[in-house]
């Protein structure tokens, strides 16, 4: 399966969880979603998201997003996110990072909710009817926030390796295991495939997400780009800065897509 076939598994209107630009965000997969002309996606930033999200929003693929932030990091604001929100074309549900993690952990454990400390007094609470404050059953007079479980329809990320058993290796990025555990389907691009079963290798096993949580994989070299992949290649700050500059205008964004997203160019680049 190639990355375009993988992207075709996500139907219009699907809920799709994406990860931050420092956590194996799937750049090539996002570009494939743009190429396929996805529409009405309901994105989830776990706990925030960046390049992939801004690109998808700019290309008109996104109807709404729940996230704690959209950011291009050192390259600054996410211009298409900001523009879409200003134009009233995007519904944003704001969260705070540990709340996103907690909602996934609740889904991972199969419980309907989990509590979280902090957050009380933030205006976020007033805008989240799905967040509830209860009195701590273990200590009267101690209000505490409850968050509902979130089991995204799809999650997507880029891993270093896949093996013959469908296991993928994400190294230290164990938070992706929680995402995969919580999600209904995980679509994973990988840098390469390896023989055998990585779970049988005690040195590799700790960084593996078992195939039971992985619905499909596609090999894409430099599949995270312009995001980095562990110690294999770095974050391409120049390219993200170029994206941030071009994406400030509609024309510039169109130019970016023509140069870096459209099928032919993307093939060459990937």
């Amino acid at each position, binding site marked *: 399966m190639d990355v375009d076939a993988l992207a075709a598994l996500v139907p219009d209107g699907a809920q799709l969880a994406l990860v931050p630009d420092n956590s194996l965000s799937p750049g090539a997969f996002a570009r494939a979603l743009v190429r396929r002309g996805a529409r009405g996606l309901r994105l989830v930033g776990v706990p925030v998201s960046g390049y992939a999200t801004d690109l998808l929003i700019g290309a008109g693929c996104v109807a709404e997003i729940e996230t704690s932030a*959209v950011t291009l990091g050192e390259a600054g604001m996410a211009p298409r996110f900001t523009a879409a929100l200003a134009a009233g074309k995007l519904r944003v549900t704001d969260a705070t990072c540990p709340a996103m993690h907690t909602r996934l952990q609740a889904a991972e454990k199969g419980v309907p909710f989990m509590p979280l400390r902090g957050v009380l007094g933030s*205006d976020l609470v007033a805008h989240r009817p799905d967040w509830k404050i209860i009195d701590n059953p273990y200590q009267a007079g101690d209000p505490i926030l409850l968050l509902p479980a979130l089991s995204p329809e799809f999650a997507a990320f880029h891993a270093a390796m896949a093996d013959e058993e469908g296991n993928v290796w994400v190294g230290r990025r164990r938070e992706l295991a929680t995402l995969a555990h919580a999600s209904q389907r995980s679509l994973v691009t990988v840098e390469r495939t390896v023989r055998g079963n990585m779970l049988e290798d005690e040195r590799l096993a700790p960084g593996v997400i078992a195939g039971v949580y992985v619905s499909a994989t596609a090999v894409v070299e430099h599949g995270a780009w312009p995001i980095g992949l562990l110690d294999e*290649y770095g974050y391409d*700050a120049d390219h993200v800065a170029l994206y941030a500059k071009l994406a400030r205008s509609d024309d510039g964004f169109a130019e970016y897509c023509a140069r870096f997203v459209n099928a032919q160019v993307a093939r060459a680049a990937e």
Partner: protein
Amino acid sequence: MSGKSDELLLIAAIARLITDPLGHPVRHAAVGAASPIPAAACWLAKMQGADIRLSLLHRPRGNPFTEGTRELFDLAGQGRIDLFFLGGVQIDGEANINLIGTGDWPGTAVRFPGSFGSAFMYLTVHRTILFREEHSPRVLVPRVDHISAPGTSPPGTFRRGHAQALVTGRCVFRFDPARARFALATLHPGETREGVRAATGFDYDELGEIAVTEGPTEAQSALLAGPVCDAMIETYPDFCRRVWGRGMKETGAKEQAA
């Protein structure tokens, strides 16, 4: 204010706050993305001999976590993060911070990235240093348009710590959580009480003589240009080049781009 001497001043001022013996002791400080000045201040305190573990969230490689930011938030939840830094699109006189945007919810006038972990960290970490270089009435407002994270909490609400101080490009404010009010602590060189008052949208106290914010000592300057810069160069190459004239920009391993 701008320029490298100003940045070194801010680093020294923050380092002094970190090692202030009156606050909760700082054994573990965490620094978020795009925060080279707080990171440098933590490194400086550490290089001066403070026993501080530093967790830099966005080191491209070799970051301290195996569960990403969830591990940071869990550490904070456990009470194991002593110091964190927060900024704000707006900060008000009760130390409420707004990272959402201005205008109606969720930022219809100007939208910013979002609240990140602020709503959690501000209440679970033992000490927070607020840092925002821009010191103007549009940033330091009487009341934030939206509270990403509250400066104080009512009695009975679980909360481990508050803002210790607010460091801007003009001055250092100390925060008194009991009174939910800032007091001017030191003025950066060249700033006046009147100038700061005029540039500040919220009311605050001025108690007695106000000292001038001290820049780095000679020994601190040497540490900053040497081992601190060495420690930061991979994470903050642009900053290190600008401030100390060191390092090359990291371009990433992929060459075919652009």
